[in-house]
């Protein structure tokens, strides 16, 4: 077989020096005032970001912090939407806010296309993925996902208490995306480490973060080589062979998109399933209603996605400008909180309540505009099936120890420990 010389060298070999980019001093510790010193990685935020955001929306709708080298936090739906739509003035070059800004010349592709790409590059990189993730395409995975959910519950045996985040929610998206990419399911424990580093370790030393990214890309290049030797009907082979404008993709594009699918697909869906089970465990009326009317699950799932939207994104300001009465500087971060937008009373009635049968629900949990989550149909299928199977098998459950529930910090929020009493 002819050697595919795109992959004979790793894209990282070409610049052996420290990666360019800008680092700033890491500031941690208690927040003085959320309007001028916010941080999404402090424990108060992890425990309850909603109270903080609701308060800011009233008194300071575009909050600021000097941490992370300077960042803004809009909390109104209209402002979040406007930034999501304005790809001219807000760049996606990095969508995870940390103390490191990647070099400007990483645009327009960014490290993990298409989420890190700006127009016009973004369009083609996204278009490649769309057919694989349509609602009809993902429907073919429903039966296998359902069987897998049953097998997880079978494995509970007769334990009276299980950790629904760790023993159930987590495994579902890992299995689904590993199958789609054609990765061995037994590698799952490694994926967890990659994700924790990317999303939760944003205040770790940059060298440590780089080292962990290197491990992720080592793993992905190993998979690419394995698929070059033995092509299969999966997403990895699809990306290796895909063409854009008459050319095959550059190696960093193939590996970057694989990294994105692995990271974006797992933590997010795990969080959505866990937050939904947490809500139902502490709200017997909603749980009983869904057990009695399982056809309500899709509507209820949308409300869970609105109220407990797992994903906050970031943007980088392109140029100094005055925006909504604040002076934004080039390279300032903007934390794009879809969770805050989803609880804006100007957009939703009873915004701070979970209304399980809410009919009108124009929520933004999957983003707005050109970066709308490519995996939204897959995520919705996984969430619905995970809840249907759980409610069918375990109709009665409650929080075993409310204080034992822990939440992920950072830009993806969901329960990471969720002890539920199931018998």
């Amino acid at each position, binding site marked *: 077989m002819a050697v595919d010389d795109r992959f004979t060298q790793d894209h990282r070999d070409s610049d052996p020096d420290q990666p360019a980019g800008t680092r700033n001093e890491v500031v941690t510790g208690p927040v003085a005032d959320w309007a001028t010193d916010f941080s999404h990685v402090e424990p108060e935020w992890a425990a309850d970001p909603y109270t903080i955001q609701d308060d800011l929306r009233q008194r300071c709708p575009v909050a600021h912090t000097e941490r992370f080298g300077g960042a803004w936090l809009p909390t109104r739906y209209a402002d979040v939407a406007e930034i999501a739509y304005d790809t001219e003035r807000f760049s996606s070059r990095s969508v995870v806010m940390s103390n490191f800004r990647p070099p400007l010349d990483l645009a327009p592709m960014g490290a993990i296309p298409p989420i890190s790409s700006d127009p016009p590059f973004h369009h083609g990189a996204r278009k490649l993925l769309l057919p694989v993730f*349509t609602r009809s395409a993902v429907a073919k995975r429903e039966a296998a996902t359902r069987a897998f959910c049953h097998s997880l519950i079978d494995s509970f045996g007769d334990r009276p208490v299980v950790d629904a985040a760790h023993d159930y929610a987590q495994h579902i998206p890992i299995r689904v995306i590993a199958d789609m990419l054609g990765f061995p399911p037994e590698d799952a424990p490694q994926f967890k480490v990659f994700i924790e580093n990317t999303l939760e370790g944003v205040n770790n030393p940059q060298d440590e973060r780089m080292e962990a990214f290197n491990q992720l890309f080592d793993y992905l290049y190993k998979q690419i080589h394995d698929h070059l030797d033995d092509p299969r009907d999966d997403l990895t082979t699809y990306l290796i062979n895909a063409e854009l404008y008459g050319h095959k993709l550059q190696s960093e594009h193939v590996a970057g998109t694989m990294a994105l699918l692995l990271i974006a697909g797992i933590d997010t869906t795990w969080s959505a399933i866990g937050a939904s089970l947490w809500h139902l465990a502490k709200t017997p009326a909603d749980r009983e209603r869904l057990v009695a009317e399982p056809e309500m699950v899709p509507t209820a799932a*949308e409300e869970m996605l609105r109220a407990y939207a797992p994903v906050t994104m970031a943007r980088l300001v392109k140029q100094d400008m005055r925006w909504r009465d604040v002076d934004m500087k080039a390279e300032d971060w903007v934390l794009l909180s879809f969770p805050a937008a989803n609880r804006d009373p100007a957009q939703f009635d009873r915004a701070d309540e979970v209304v399980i049968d809410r009919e*009108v629900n*124009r929520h933004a949990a*999957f983003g*707005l*505009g050109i970066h*709308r989550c490519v995996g*939204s149909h897959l995520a919705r299928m996984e969430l619905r099936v995970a809840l249907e199977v759980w409610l069918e098998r375990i109709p009665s459950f409650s929080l075993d120890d409310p204080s034992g529930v822990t939440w992920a910090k950072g830009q993806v929020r969901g329960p990471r420990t969720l002890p539920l009493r199931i018998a």
Partner: protein
Amino acid sequence: MKAHIDPQRCQGHGRCYTLAPDLFGEDDEGYGTVPGDGVVQPAQVHTARLARSNCPESAIDLSEES
């Protein structure tokens, strides 16, 4: 009443073809389509409005002329 999707706004969230499958469809990339003539029958008015009010991009228009 006639249903119309603005292709400039539609981003393929798919709320329309999930909530009102007899009025809206999906293309190969997941964008919403109006497969028929778009005329909303009286029995479909409720689901048509539901689709419009759940489209995150406000891409659906239900105009009153036939």
